[in-house]
Protein backbone atom coordinates (compact mmCIF):
# COMPACT_ATOMS: atom_id res chain seq x y z
CA UNK A 1 0.00 0.00 0.00
CA UNK A 2 2.87 2.35 0.84
CA UNK A 3 4.48 1.74 -2.53
CA UNK A 4 1.18 2.45 -4.24
CA UNK A 5 0.76 5.69 -2.27
CA UNK A 6 4.30 6.67 -3.24
CA UNK A 7 3.43 6.02 -6.87
CA UNK A 8 0.24 8.09 -6.57
CA UNK A 9 2.24 10.94 -5.01
CA UNK A 10 4.73 10.84 -7.85
CA UNK A 11 1.92 10.69 -10.41
CA UNK A 12 0.24 13.75 -8.94
CA UNK A 13 3.43 15.71 -8.30
CA UNK A 14 2.86 18.11 -11.17
CA UNK A 15 -0.76 18.63 -10.18
CA UNK A 16 0.44 19.45 -6.66
CA UNK A 17 3.01 21.94 -7.98
CA UNK A 18 0.56 23.61 -10.37
CA UNK A 19 -2.24 23.84 -7.78
CA UNK A 20 0.22 25.21 -5.21
CA UNK A 21 1.43 27.89 -7.61
CA UNK A 22 -2.11 28.76 -8.74
CA UNK A 23 -3.23 29.20 -5.12
CA UNK A 24 -0.06 30.78 -3.72
CA UNK A 25 0.74 33.44 -6.32
CA UNK A 26 -2.58 35.35 -6.26
CA UNK A 27 -2.79 35.07 -2.48
CA UNK A 28 0.78 36.28 -2.02
CA UNK A 29 0.16 39.18 -4.40
CA UNK A 30 -2.95 40.19 -2.45
CA UNK A 31 -1.27 39.84 0.95
CA UNK A 32 1.75 41.80 -0.27
CA UNK A 33 -0.61 44.68 -1.07
CA UNK A 34 -2.11 44.84 2.43
CA UNK A 35 -1.31 48.20 3.95
CA UNK A 36 -1.18 47.35 7.61
CA UNK A 37 -1.03 51.00 8.65
CA UNK A 38 -4.42 52.07 7.36
CA UNK A 39 -7.68 50.49 8.34
CA UNK A 40 -10.27 49.75 5.65
CA UNK A 41 -13.66 51.41 5.54
CA UNK A 42 -14.86 48.57 7.77
CA UNK A 43 -12.57 49.79 10.54
CA UNK A 44 -9.88 47.16 10.30
CA UNK A 45 -7.16 46.02 7.96
CA UNK A 46 -8.37 42.92 6.10
CA UNK A 47 -5.85 40.02 6.22
CA UNK A 48 -7.64 38.53 3.15
CA UNK A 49 -8.34 35.22 4.84
CA UNK A 50 -11.52 34.92 2.80
CA UNK A 51 -9.43 34.52 -0.35
CA UNK A 52 -7.48 31.57 1.03
CA UNK A 53 -10.75 30.10 2.36
CA UNK A 54 -12.23 30.28 -1.14
CA UNK A 55 -9.16 28.47 -2.49
CA UNK A 56 -9.51 25.83 0.21
CA UNK A 57 -13.20 25.38 -0.59
CA UNK A 58 -12.48 25.08 -4.32
CA UNK A 59 -9.73 22.53 -3.69
CA UNK A 60 -12.20 20.48 -1.63
CA UNK A 61 -14.52 20.37 -4.66
CA UNK A 62 -11.76 19.62 -7.17
CA UNK A 63 -9.76 16.97 -5.33
CA UNK A 64 -12.42 14.18 -5.18
CA UNK A 65 -12.94 14.16 -8.98
CA UNK A 66 -9.17 14.28 -9.41
CA UNK A 67 -8.56 11.03 -7.52
CA UNK A 68 -11.85 9.13 -7.64
CA UNK A 69 -12.96 9.62 -11.24
CA UNK A 70 -11.42 6.21 -12.10
CA UNK A 71 -14.51 4.55 -10.64
CA UNK A 72 -16.73 6.40 -13.12
CA UNK A 73 -14.97 4.83 -16.06
CA UNK A 74 -15.33 1.15 -17.01
CA UNK A 75 -11.71 0.95 -18.08
CA UNK A 76 -10.59 2.60 -14.84
CA UNK A 77 -12.62 0.11 -12.83
CA UNK A 78 -11.03 -2.80 -14.72
CA UNK A 79 -7.56 -1.45 -14.01
CA UNK A 80 -7.90 -0.38 -10.37
CA UNK A 81 -10.27 -3.04 -9.03
CA UNK A 82 -8.10 -5.78 -10.54
CA UNK A 83 -5.07 -4.55 -8.60
CA UNK A 84 -4.02 -6.69 -5.65
CA UNK A 85 -5.33 -4.18 -3.14
CA UNK A 86 -8.39 -4.51 -0.96
CA UNK A 87 -11.01 -1.91 -1.87
CA UNK A 88 -10.64 -0.07 1.44
CA UNK A 89 -6.90 0.22 0.92
CA UNK A 90 -7.40 1.53 -2.62
CA UNK A 91 -9.92 4.10 -1.39
CA UNK A 92 -7.69 5.01 1.54
CA UNK A 93 -4.70 5.66 -0.73
CA UNK A 94 -6.83 7.62 -3.18
CA UNK A 95 -8.43 9.50 -0.27
CA UNK A 96 -5.06 10.42 1.23
CA UNK A 97 -3.83 11.55 -2.18
CA UNK A 98 -6.89 13.76 -2.59
CA UNK A 99 -6.37 15.19 0.87
CA UNK A 100 -2.79 16.04 -0.01
CA UNK A 101 -4.09 17.77 -3.15
CA UNK A 102 -6.12 19.96 -0.80
CA UNK A 103 -3.66 20.46 2.05
CA UNK A 104 -0.38 20.99 0.21
CA UNK A 105 -1.49 23.80 -2.16
CA UNK A 106 -3.43 25.37 0.70
CA UNK A 107 -0.44 25.19 3.06
CA UNK A 108 1.94 26.62 0.46
CA UNK A 109 -0.44 29.51 -0.25
CA UNK A 110 -1.23 30.10 3.43
CA UNK A 111 2.43 30.14 4.44
CA UNK A 112 3.38 32.32 1.47
CA UNK A 113 0.68 34.82 2.36
CA UNK A 114 1.60 34.70 6.03
CA UNK A 115 5.23 35.51 5.26
CA UNK A 116 4.18 38.66 3.41
CA UNK A 117 1.79 39.67 6.18
CA UNK A 118 4.37 38.98 8.89
CA UNK A 119 7.07 40.87 6.99
CA UNK A 120 4.91 43.93 6.37
CA UNK A 121 3.53 43.75 9.85
CA UNK A 122 6.92 43.67 11.58
CA UNK A 123 6.86 47.31 12.74
CA UNK A 124 3.23 48.23 13.04
CA UNK A 125 1.94 45.04 14.73
CA UNK A 126 -1.57 45.61 13.45
CA UNK A 127 -2.27 41.87 13.16
CA UNK A 128 -2.24 39.32 15.93
CA UNK A 129 0.21 37.04 14.15
CA UNK A 130 -0.11 34.24 16.70
CA UNK A 131 -3.73 33.84 15.59
CA UNK A 132 -2.49 32.52 12.27
CA UNK A 133 -1.60 29.25 14.03
CA UNK A 134 -5.17 28.35 15.12
CA UNK A 135 -6.39 29.78 11.83
CA UNK A 136 -4.17 27.36 9.90
CA UNK A 137 -5.18 24.28 11.88
CA UNK A 138 -8.81 25.35 11.90
CA UNK A 139 -8.73 25.66 8.12
CA UNK A 140 -7.23 22.18 7.90
CA UNK A 141 -10.04 20.83 10.07
CA UNK A 142 -12.76 22.46 7.95
CA UNK A 143 -10.92 21.43 4.79
CA UNK A 144 -10.76 17.83 5.99
CA UNK A 145 -14.48 17.77 6.82
CA UNK A 146 -15.55 19.40 3.55
CA UNK A 147 -13.24 17.14 1.53
CA UNK A 148 -14.59 14.03 3.30
CA UNK A 149 -18.18 15.10 2.62
CA UNK A 150 -17.50 15.91 -1.03
CA UNK A 151 -15.60 12.66 -1.51
CA UNK A 152 -18.53 10.69 -0.16
CA UNK A 153 -21.01 12.60 -2.35
CA UNK A 154 -18.83 12.39 -5.46
CA UNK A 155 -18.30 8.65 -5.09
CA UNK A 156 -22.07 8.08 -4.92
CA UNK A 157 -22.23 9.00 -8.60
CA UNK A 158 -21.51 6.78 -11.58
CA UNK A 159 -20.33 9.57 -13.88
CA UNK A 160 -18.06 12.55 -13.24
CA UNK A 161 -20.81 15.01 -14.23
CA UNK A 162 -23.24 13.43 -11.75
CA UNK A 163 -20.51 13.57 -9.10
CA UNK A 164 -20.15 17.34 -9.54
CA UNK A 165 -23.95 17.73 -9.49
CA UNK A 166 -24.17 15.76 -6.22
CA UNK A 167 -21.50 17.90 -4.53
CA UNK A 168 -23.13 21.14 -5.67
CA UNK A 169 -26.69 19.97 -4.95
CA UNK A 170 -25.81 19.27 -1.34
CA UNK A 171 -24.08 22.61 -0.85
CA UNK A 172 -27.25 24.56 0.04
CA UNK A 173 -29.46 21.62 1.10
CA UNK A 174 -29.05 22.20 4.85
CA UNK A 175 -29.57 25.93 4.41
CA UNK A 176 -32.83 25.41 2.52
CA UNK A 177 -33.93 22.80 5.05
CA UNK A 178 -33.52 25.41 7.81
CA UNK A 179 -35.38 27.94 5.65
CA UNK A 180 -38.18 25.40 5.29
CA UNK A 181 -38.17 24.81 9.04
CA UNK A 182 -38.51 28.55 9.63
CA UNK A 183 -41.46 28.77 7.25
CA UNK A 184 -43.08 25.72 8.67
CA UNK A 185 -42.80 26.31 12.37
CA UNK A 186 -42.29 30.05 12.78
CA UNK A 187 -39.42 29.06 15.07
CA UNK A 188 -36.46 30.87 13.59
CA UNK A 189 -33.40 28.64 13.44
CA UNK A 190 -31.28 31.74 13.46
CA UNK A 191 -29.26 33.09 10.58
CA UNK A 192 -25.89 31.97 11.97
CA UNK A 193 -27.06 28.41 12.51
CA UNK A 194 -28.75 28.39 9.13
CA UNK A 195 -25.63 29.67 7.39
CA UNK A 196 -23.52 26.98 9.02
CA UNK A 197 -25.81 24.37 7.45
CA UNK A 198 -24.34 25.14 4.04
CA UNK A 199 -21.64 22.54 3.42
CA UNK A 200 -19.19 25.46 3.25
CA UNK A 201 -20.99 27.39 6.01
CA UNK A 202 -18.67 26.37 8.84
CA UNK A 203 -15.63 27.32 6.80
CA UNK A 204 -17.15 30.69 5.94
CA UNK A 205 -18.07 31.46 9.56
CA UNK A 206 -14.68 30.33 10.82
CA UNK A 207 -12.96 32.58 8.26
CA UNK A 208 -14.95 35.62 9.40
CA UNK A 209 -14.19 34.93 13.05
CA UNK A 210 -10.48 34.33 12.49
CA UNK A 211 -10.31 37.54 10.47
CA UNK A 212 -11.68 39.42 13.47
CA UNK A 213 -9.29 37.63 15.86
CA UNK A 214 -6.27 38.37 13.67
CA UNK A 215 -7.33 42.01 13.63
CA UNK A 216 -7.40 42.01 17.44
CA UNK A 217 -11.16 42.03 17.87
CA UNK A 218 -13.11 39.89 20.28
CA UNK A 219 -15.14 37.01 18.93
CA UNK A 220 -18.02 35.06 20.37
CA UNK A 221 -17.74 31.48 19.19
CA UNK A 222 -20.81 29.45 18.42
CA UNK A 223 -20.92 25.67 18.52
CA UNK A 224 -22.81 25.80 15.21
CA UNK A 225 -19.60 26.81 13.46
CA UNK A 226 -18.03 23.44 14.26
CA UNK A 227 -20.76 20.94 15.02
CA UNK A 228 -22.46 20.59 11.65
CA UNK A 229 -19.31 20.42 9.47
CA UNK A 230 -17.57 17.98 11.83
CA UNK A 231 -20.61 15.72 12.18
CA UNK A 232 -21.06 15.70 8.41
CA UNK A 233 -17.36 15.08 7.79
CA UNK A 234 -17.15 12.17 10.24
CA UNK A 235 -20.44 10.65 9.02
CA UNK A 236 -19.31 10.94 5.38
CA UNK A 237 -15.96 9.28 6.12
CA UNK A 238 -17.60 6.42 8.00
CA UNK A 239 -20.27 5.96 5.32
CA UNK A 240 -17.66 5.99 2.55
CA UNK A 241 -15.96 2.92 4.01
CA UNK A 242 -19.10 1.25 5.36
CA UNK A 243 -20.74 1.33 1.92
CA UNK A 244 -17.62 0.04 0.13
CA UNK A 245 -18.64 -3.65 0.20
CA UNK A 246 -21.80 -2.67 -1.70
CA UNK A 247 -19.84 -0.76 -4.34
CA UNK A 248 -20.36 -2.43 -7.73
CA UNK A 249 -17.73 -2.15 -10.42
CA UNK A 250 -20.32 -2.61 -13.15
CA UNK A 251 -22.05 0.64 -12.15
CA UNK A 252 -19.38 2.78 -13.81
CA UNK A 253 -20.81 5.06 -16.51
CA UNK A 254 -24.36 3.94 -15.64
CA UNK A 255 -27.24 6.04 -14.30
CA UNK A 256 -26.44 7.23 -10.76
CA UNK A 257 -29.07 5.40 -8.75
CA UNK A 258 -27.66 6.11 -5.28
CA UNK A 259 -30.16 7.05 -2.60
CA UNK A 260 -27.79 9.86 -1.65
CA UNK A 261 -28.10 11.35 -5.12
CA UNK A 262 -30.91 12.41 -7.43
CA UNK A 263 -33.37 10.03 -5.76
CA UNK A 264 -33.02 12.05 -2.58
CA UNK A 265 -32.50 15.62 -3.61
CA UNK A 266 -35.02 15.88 -6.49
CA UNK A 267 -38.05 15.12 -4.27
CA UNK A 268 -36.59 16.91 -1.24
CA UNK A 269 -35.86 20.14 -3.13
CA UNK A 270 -39.21 19.98 -4.94
CA UNK A 271 -41.16 19.49 -1.73
CA UNK A 272 -39.10 22.11 0.11
CA UNK A 273 -39.59 24.80 -2.51
CA UNK A 274 -43.31 24.12 -2.56
CA UNK A 275 -43.45 24.49 1.18
CA UNK A 276 -42.24 28.04 0.86
CA UNK A 277 -45.06 30.37 1.80
CA UNK A 278 -44.45 32.88 -0.95
CA UNK A 279 -45.61 30.70 -3.81
CA UNK A 280 -46.92 32.25 -6.97
CA UNK A 281 -47.80 30.67 -10.28
CA UNK A 282 -44.44 31.65 -11.84
CA UNK A 283 -42.42 30.11 -9.03
CA UNK A 284 -44.65 27.05 -9.06
CA UNK A 285 -43.98 26.51 -12.78
CA UNK A 286 -40.27 27.01 -12.28
CA UNK A 287 -40.15 24.36 -9.53
CA UNK A 288 -42.08 21.83 -11.62
CA UNK A 289 -39.88 22.48 -14.67
CA UNK A 290 -36.78 22.28 -12.46
CA UNK A 291 -37.85 18.91 -11.07
CA UNK A 292 -38.55 17.56 -14.56
CA UNK A 293 -35.21 18.85 -15.90
CA UNK A 294 -33.38 17.29 -12.96
CA UNK A 295 -35.15 13.98 -13.62
CA UNK A 296 -34.20 14.18 -17.31
CA UNK A 297 -30.55 14.73 -16.26
CA UNK A 298 -30.87 11.82 -13.82
CA UNK A 299 -32.47 9.30 -16.22
CA UNK A 300 -30.59 10.65 -19.30
CA UNK A 301 -33.71 10.53 -21.44
CA UNK A 302 -36.85 12.56 -22.00
CA UNK A 303 -39.24 9.66 -21.59
CA UNK A 304 -39.12 8.25 -18.13
CA UNK A 305 -41.32 5.68 -16.47
CA UNK A 306 -44.41 6.37 -14.38
CA UNK A 307 -42.54 5.90 -11.10
CA UNK A 308 -40.48 9.06 -11.70
CA UNK A 309 -43.62 11.02 -12.50
CA UNK A 310 -45.08 9.66 -9.25
CA UNK A 311 -41.93 10.82 -7.44
CA UNK A 312 -42.25 14.38 -8.79
CA UNK A 313 -46.03 14.44 -8.28
CA UNK A 314 -45.68 13.04 -4.77
CA UNK A 315 -43.04 15.63 -3.87
CA UNK A 316 -45.28 18.44 -5.17
CA UNK A 317 -48.26 17.04 -3.25
CA UNK A 318 -46.24 16.78 -0.02
CA UNK A 319 -44.88 20.28 -0.59
CA UNK A 320 -48.36 21.72 -1.08
CA UNK A 321 -49.71 19.81 1.90
CA UNK A 322 -46.92 21.11 4.13
CA UNK A 323 -47.42 24.54 2.67
CA UNK A 324 -50.94 24.66 4.08
CA UNK A 325 -49.47 24.32 7.58
CA UNK A 326 -46.72 26.84 6.97
CA UNK A 327 -46.55 30.38 8.32
CA UNK A 328 -47.63 31.78 4.97
CA UNK A 329 -50.00 29.23 3.39
CA UNK A 330 -50.45 29.72 -0.33
CA UNK A 331 -54.22 30.35 -0.16
CA UNK A 332 -53.68 33.42 2.03
CA UNK A 333 -51.40 35.08 -0.50
CA UNK A 334 -53.01 37.99 -2.25
CA UNK A 335 -51.71 38.22 -5.80
Amino acid at each position, binding site marked *: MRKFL*KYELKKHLWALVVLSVVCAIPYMIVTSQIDTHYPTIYGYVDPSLSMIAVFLGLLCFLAPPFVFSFKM*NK*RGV*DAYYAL*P*LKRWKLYLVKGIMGLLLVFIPFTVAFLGGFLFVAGANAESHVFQLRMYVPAYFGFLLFGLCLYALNTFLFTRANTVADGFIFMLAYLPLGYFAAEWYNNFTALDVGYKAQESLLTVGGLSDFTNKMTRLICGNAVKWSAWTFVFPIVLGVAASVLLFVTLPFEKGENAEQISESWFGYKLFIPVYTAMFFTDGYLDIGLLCMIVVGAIVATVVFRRKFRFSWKWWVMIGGAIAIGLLLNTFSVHPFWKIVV
Partner: protein
Amino acid sequence: MIEIADLKKSYEKGKDVLCGVCAQISDGSVFGLVGINGAGKSTLLRLIAGVLKQDRGQVCVDGEPIWENEEKKREIFFLPDDPFYTANVTAAGLAEMYASVYDMDKRVFLTYLEKFKLNEKTPIRNFSKGMKRQVFVSLALAIAPKYLLLDEAFDGLDPLARLVFKRGLVSLVEEKGTTVIISSHSLRELEDICDSYGILDHGQITCSGELVKDLEKLHKFQMAFDREISKEEFGFECMSFTKTGRVVQIIAKGDAEAIATKIEALQPLFVEEIEVDFEELFIGEVEARGYLQ
Protein backbone atom coordinates in the same frame (compact mmCIF):
# COMPACT_ATOMS: atom_id res chain seq x y z
CA MET B 1 -6.00 -24.20 -10.02
CA ILE B 2 -8.95 -21.98 -10.80
CA GLU B 3 -12.29 -23.42 -9.80
CA ILE B 4 -15.51 -21.81 -10.86
CA ALA B 5 -18.63 -23.15 -9.22
CA ASP B 6 -22.23 -22.27 -10.11
CA LEU B 7 -21.28 -18.70 -10.99
CA LYS B 8 -24.13 -16.28 -11.59
CA LYS B 9 -23.93 -12.64 -12.56
CA SER B 10 -26.52 -10.25 -13.89
CA TYR B 11 -26.36 -6.53 -14.57
CA GLU B 12 -30.12 -6.11 -14.81
CA LYS B 13 -32.85 -7.83 -12.88
CA GLY B 14 -33.99 -10.93 -14.71
CA LYS B 15 -31.24 -10.78 -17.33
CA ASP B 16 -28.45 -13.15 -16.37
CA VAL B 17 -25.16 -12.68 -18.17
CA LEU B 18 -23.79 -15.78 -16.48
CA CYS B 19 -26.05 -18.39 -14.93
CA GLY B 20 -24.38 -21.35 -13.29
CA VAL B 21 -20.95 -21.35 -14.90
CA CYS B 22 -18.83 -24.27 -13.71
CA ALA B 23 -15.25 -24.88 -14.77
CA GLN B 24 -11.91 -26.11 -13.54
CA ILE B 25 -8.78 -24.75 -15.08
CA SER B 26 -5.73 -26.71 -14.08
CA ASP B 27 -2.35 -25.19 -13.34
CA GLY B 28 -0.04 -24.58 -16.25
CA SER B 29 -2.75 -24.85 -18.86
CA VAL B 30 -3.64 -22.36 -21.56
CA PHE B 31 -7.42 -22.15 -21.60
CA GLY B 32 -9.16 -20.60 -24.58
CA LEU B 33 -12.44 -18.96 -23.65
CA VAL B 34 -14.63 -18.52 -26.69
CA GLY B 35 -18.18 -17.55 -27.41
CA ILE B 36 -20.23 -15.31 -29.63
CA ASN B 37 -20.43 -11.55 -28.92
CA GLY B 38 -22.23 -10.88 -25.65
CA ALA B 39 -21.78 -14.45 -24.41
CA GLY B 40 -20.27 -13.19 -21.14
CA LYS B 41 -16.55 -13.86 -21.72
CA SER B 42 -15.40 -10.46 -20.42
CA THR B 43 -17.78 -10.70 -17.45
CA LEU B 44 -16.37 -14.12 -16.55
CA LEU B 45 -12.79 -12.83 -16.77
CA ARG B 46 -13.70 -9.80 -14.61
CA LEU B 47 -15.20 -12.11 -12.01
CA ILE B 48 -12.08 -14.28 -11.97
CA ALA B 49 -9.95 -11.12 -11.65
CA GLY B 50 -12.02 -9.90 -8.69
CA VAL B 51 -13.15 -6.75 -10.52
CA LEU B 52 -16.81 -7.74 -10.22
CA LYS B 53 -18.57 -9.56 -7.46
CA GLN B 54 -20.69 -12.56 -8.33
CA ASP B 55 -24.38 -12.72 -7.44
CA ARG B 56 -24.10 -16.41 -6.63
CA GLY B 57 -21.47 -19.16 -6.71
CA GLN B 58 -17.77 -18.77 -6.25
CA VAL B 59 -14.45 -18.31 -7.97
CA CYS B 60 -11.62 -19.99 -6.08
CA VAL B 61 -7.95 -19.72 -6.86
CA ASP B 62 -5.87 -22.46 -5.26
CA GLY B 63 -8.85 -23.19 -3.05
CA GLU B 64 -9.31 -19.60 -1.82
CA PRO B 65 -12.15 -17.28 -2.85
CA ILE B 66 -10.73 -14.50 -5.01
CA TRP B 67 -13.06 -11.67 -3.95
CA GLU B 68 -11.08 -9.10 -1.90
CA ASN B 69 -8.24 -11.61 -1.57
CA GLU B 70 -5.16 -9.42 -1.83
CA GLU B 71 -2.66 -12.27 -1.65
CA LYS B 72 -4.29 -14.32 -4.39
CA LYS B 73 -4.92 -11.28 -6.57
CA ARG B 74 -1.18 -10.61 -6.48
CA GLU B 75 -0.84 -13.86 -8.43
CA ILE B 76 -3.33 -12.72 -11.08
CA PHE B 77 -2.88 -10.17 -13.82
CA PHE B 78 -5.91 -9.15 -15.83
CA LEU B 79 -5.47 -7.51 -19.21
CA PRO B 80 -8.88 -6.21 -20.31
CA ASP B 81 -9.96 -5.73 -23.92
CA ASP B 82 -9.65 -1.94 -23.63
CA PRO B 83 -6.99 -1.26 -20.99
CA PHE B 84 -6.96 1.94 -18.95
CA TYR B 85 -4.28 4.61 -19.01
CA THR B 86 -4.37 8.21 -17.88
CA ALA B 87 -3.99 11.15 -20.25
CA ASN B 88 -0.25 11.70 -20.16
CA VAL B 89 1.04 8.40 -18.85
CA THR B 90 3.99 6.82 -20.64
CA ALA B 91 4.85 3.15 -20.87
CA ALA B 92 7.44 3.75 -18.15
CA GLY B 93 4.83 5.46 -15.94
CA LEU B 94 2.44 2.58 -16.41
CA ALA B 95 5.14 0.09 -15.49
CA GLU B 96 5.83 2.12 -12.36
CA MET B 97 2.18 1.83 -11.30
CA TYR B 98 2.12 -1.94 -11.73
CA ALA B 99 5.56 -2.31 -10.13
CA SER B 100 4.11 -0.69 -7.00
CA VAL B 101 1.70 -3.59 -6.50
CA TYR B 102 3.24 -6.53 -8.41
CA ASP B 103 6.67 -8.12 -8.45
CA MET B 104 7.63 -6.99 -11.89
CA ASP B 105 10.81 -7.51 -13.85
CA LYS B 106 11.51 -4.09 -15.39
CA ARG B 107 14.20 -5.57 -17.65
CA VAL B 108 11.75 -8.00 -19.23
CA PHE B 109 9.35 -5.11 -19.79
CA LEU B 110 12.04 -3.05 -21.52
CA THR B 111 13.12 -6.06 -23.58
CA TYR B 112 9.60 -6.51 -24.91
CA LEU B 113 9.21 -2.77 -25.56
CA GLU B 114 12.41 -3.01 -27.57
CA LYS B 115 11.09 -6.04 -29.48
CA PHE B 116 7.95 -4.08 -30.30
CA LYS B 117 10.06 -1.00 -31.09
CA LEU B 118 8.21 1.19 -28.60
CA ASN B 119 9.64 4.18 -26.74
CA GLU B 120 8.98 3.99 -23.01
CA LYS B 121 8.96 7.81 -22.71
CA THR B 122 6.23 8.41 -25.30
CA PRO B 123 2.75 9.10 -23.89
CA ILE B 124 0.56 6.06 -24.55
CA ARG B 125 -2.20 8.25 -25.99
CA ASN B 126 0.10 8.90 -28.98
CA PHE B 127 0.32 5.18 -29.80
CA SER B 128 -1.94 3.37 -32.26
CA LYS B 129 -4.41 0.79 -30.95
CA GLY B 130 -2.03 -2.08 -31.67
CA MET B 131 0.94 -0.28 -30.09
CA LYS B 132 -1.09 0.38 -26.93
CA ARG B 133 -1.88 -3.31 -26.83
CA GLN B 134 1.82 -4.08 -27.22
CA VAL B 135 2.62 -1.94 -24.15
CA PHE B 136 0.11 -3.86 -22.03
CA VAL B 137 1.20 -7.21 -23.43
CA SER B 138 4.79 -6.30 -22.43
CA LEU B 139 3.52 -5.48 -18.95
CA ALA B 140 1.71 -8.79 -18.65
CA LEU B 141 4.78 -10.73 -19.73
CA ALA B 142 7.05 -8.72 -17.41
CA ILE B 143 4.78 -9.28 -14.41
CA ALA B 144 4.81 -13.01 -15.23
CA PRO B 145 1.94 -13.82 -12.87
CA LYS B 146 0.86 -17.28 -11.82
CA TYR B 147 -2.50 -16.64 -13.49
CA LEU B 148 -2.81 -14.48 -16.56
CA LEU B 149 -6.24 -13.39 -17.77
CA LEU B 150 -6.33 -11.96 -21.28
CA ASP B 151 -9.46 -10.47 -22.81
CA GLU B 152 -9.50 -10.16 -26.61
CA ALA B 153 -5.81 -10.86 -26.39
CA PHE B 154 -4.83 -10.45 -30.04
CA ASP B 155 -7.12 -7.53 -30.83
CA GLY B 156 -5.19 -4.90 -32.79
CA LEU B 157 -1.87 -6.78 -32.85
CA ASP B 158 -0.17 -7.22 -36.20
CA PRO B 159 0.97 -10.74 -37.21
CA LEU B 160 4.53 -10.12 -36.07
CA ALA B 161 3.43 -8.77 -32.68
CA ARG B 162 1.07 -11.75 -32.33
CA LEU B 163 3.99 -14.07 -32.90
CA VAL B 164 6.14 -12.30 -30.29
CA PHE B 165 3.23 -12.39 -27.86
CA LYS B 166 2.48 -16.06 -28.45
CA ARG B 167 6.15 -16.98 -28.00
CA GLY B 168 6.21 -14.91 -24.80
CA LEU B 169 3.14 -16.73 -23.51
CA VAL B 170 4.55 -20.14 -24.32
CA SER B 171 7.82 -19.37 -22.54
CA LEU B 172 5.86 -18.06 -19.52
CA VAL B 173 3.91 -21.29 -19.34
CA GLU B 174 7.02 -23.42 -19.78
CA GLU B 175 9.35 -21.50 -17.46
CA LYS B 176 7.01 -20.18 -14.77
CA GLY B 177 4.11 -22.62 -15.04
CA THR B 178 1.72 -19.74 -15.63
CA THR B 179 -1.93 -20.60 -16.19
CA VAL B 180 -3.41 -18.52 -18.99
CA ILE B 181 -7.08 -17.87 -19.65
CA ILE B 182 -7.38 -16.19 -22.97
CA SER B 183 -10.51 -14.95 -24.67
CA SER B 184 -10.35 -14.10 -28.33
CA HIS B 185 -12.28 -14.28 -31.56
CA SER B 186 -9.05 -15.18 -33.39
CA LEU B 187 -9.58 -18.90 -33.01
CA ARG B 188 -6.68 -19.76 -35.29
CA GLU B 189 -4.36 -17.90 -32.88
CA LEU B 190 -5.93 -19.68 -29.92
CA GLU B 191 -5.47 -23.04 -31.57
CA ASP B 192 -1.73 -22.37 -31.72
CA ILE B 193 -1.34 -21.94 -27.98
CA CYS B 194 -4.35 -23.36 -26.14
CA ASP B 195 -4.41 -26.86 -24.73
CA SER B 196 -7.95 -26.60 -23.39
CA TYR B 197 -11.00 -24.56 -24.19
CA GLY B 198 -14.50 -23.64 -23.09
CA ILE B 199 -17.36 -22.36 -25.18
CA LEU B 200 -19.54 -19.89 -23.34
CA ASP B 201 -23.12 -19.71 -24.49
CA HIS B 202 -26.32 -18.53 -22.86
CA GLY B 203 -24.43 -17.81 -19.64
CA GLN B 204 -22.93 -21.26 -19.28
CA ILE B 205 -19.91 -23.18 -20.47
CA THR B 206 -21.73 -25.49 -22.82
CA CYS B 207 -18.74 -27.28 -24.24
CA SER B 208 -15.24 -27.69 -22.89
CA GLY B 209 -12.34 -30.04 -22.97
CA GLU B 210 -8.86 -30.65 -24.22
CA LEU B 211 -8.50 -29.02 -27.60
CA VAL B 212 -6.43 -31.66 -29.39
CA LYS B 213 -8.57 -34.55 -28.11
CA ASP B 214 -11.82 -32.83 -29.05
CA LEU B 215 -10.52 -31.91 -32.49
CA GLU B 216 -9.58 -35.56 -33.00
CA LYS B 217 -13.17 -36.55 -32.28
CA LEU B 218 -14.34 -34.48 -35.24
CA HIS B 219 -13.91 -35.53 -38.83
CA LYS B 220 -14.16 -33.34 -41.84
CA PHE B 221 -14.70 -34.86 -45.25
CA GLN B 222 -14.71 -33.20 -48.62
CA MET B 223 -16.33 -35.10 -51.49
CA ALA B 224 -17.79 -34.70 -54.94
CA PHE B 225 -20.77 -36.53 -56.45
CA ASP B 226 -22.14 -36.95 -59.93
CA ARG B 227 -25.50 -35.72 -58.65
CA GLU B 228 -27.00 -33.24 -56.18
CA ILE B 229 -27.07 -34.75 -52.70
CA SER B 230 -28.93 -33.77 -49.54
CA LYS B 231 -27.85 -33.85 -45.88
CA GLU B 232 -30.45 -36.48 -45.04
CA GLU B 233 -28.98 -39.00 -47.50
CA PHE B 234 -25.84 -39.36 -45.37
CA GLY B 235 -27.73 -41.23 -42.68
CA PHE B 236 -25.74 -39.81 -39.76
CA GLU B 237 -25.68 -36.55 -37.78
CA CYS B 238 -23.59 -33.85 -39.45
CA MET B 239 -22.37 -30.98 -37.25
CA SER B 240 -21.77 -28.97 -40.36
CA PHE B 241 -22.96 -29.48 -43.92
CA THR B 242 -21.81 -27.21 -46.76
CA LYS B 243 -22.76 -27.82 -50.37
CA THR B 244 -21.40 -26.03 -53.42
CA GLY B 245 -23.05 -27.61 -56.45
CA ARG B 246 -22.08 -31.27 -56.33
CA VAL B 247 -19.13 -30.67 -53.97
CA VAL B 248 -19.98 -31.34 -50.32
CA GLN B 249 -18.10 -30.69 -47.06
CA ILE B 250 -19.27 -32.27 -43.84
CA ILE B 251 -18.08 -32.30 -40.26
CA ALA B 252 -19.25 -35.14 -38.07
CA LYS B 253 -18.47 -36.61 -34.68
CA GLY B 254 -17.72 -40.28 -34.18
CA ASP B 255 -15.61 -43.07 -35.60
CA ALA B 256 -13.83 -41.88 -38.77
CA GLU B 257 -13.94 -45.28 -40.45
CA ALA B 258 -17.67 -45.74 -39.84
CA ILE B 259 -18.33 -42.28 -41.28
CA ALA B 260 -16.12 -43.03 -44.29
CA THR B 261 -17.97 -46.30 -44.94
CA LYS B 262 -21.30 -44.49 -44.92
CA ILE B 263 -19.94 -41.89 -47.33
CA GLU B 264 -18.56 -44.59 -49.65
CA ALA B 265 -22.02 -46.13 -49.77
CA LEU B 266 -23.20 -42.94 -51.47
CA GLN B 267 -20.65 -43.56 -54.26
CA PRO B 268 -18.84 -40.25 -54.37
CA LEU B 269 -16.55 -39.40 -57.29
CA PHE B 270 -13.85 -38.65 -54.77
CA VAL B 271 -13.61 -38.25 -51.01
CA GLU B 272 -10.84 -37.01 -48.73
CA GLU B 273 -10.52 -36.30 -45.01
CA ILE B 274 -9.21 -32.87 -44.04
CA GLU B 275 -8.02 -31.66 -40.62
CA VAL B 276 -10.61 -29.86 -38.51
CA ASP B 277 -9.53 -26.58 -36.90
CA PHE B 278 -10.76 -24.85 -33.75
CA GLU B 279 -12.84 -22.36 -35.71
CA GLU B 280 -14.74 -25.21 -37.34
CA LEU B 281 -15.24 -26.90 -33.99
CA PHE B 282 -16.61 -23.62 -32.60
CA ILE B 283 -18.86 -22.95 -35.59
CA GLY B 284 -20.10 -26.54 -35.50
CA GLU B 285 -20.94 -26.20 -31.81
CA VAL B 286 -22.74 -22.86 -32.12
CA GLU B 287 -24.60 -24.06 -35.22
CA ALA B 288 -25.73 -27.08 -33.27
CA ARG B 289 -27.16 -24.64 -30.70
CA GLY B 290 -29.30 -22.93 -33.26
CA TYR B 291 -27.10 -20.01 -34.32
CA LEU B 292 -26.33 -19.23 -37.98
CA GLN B 293 -29.28 -21.29 -39.28
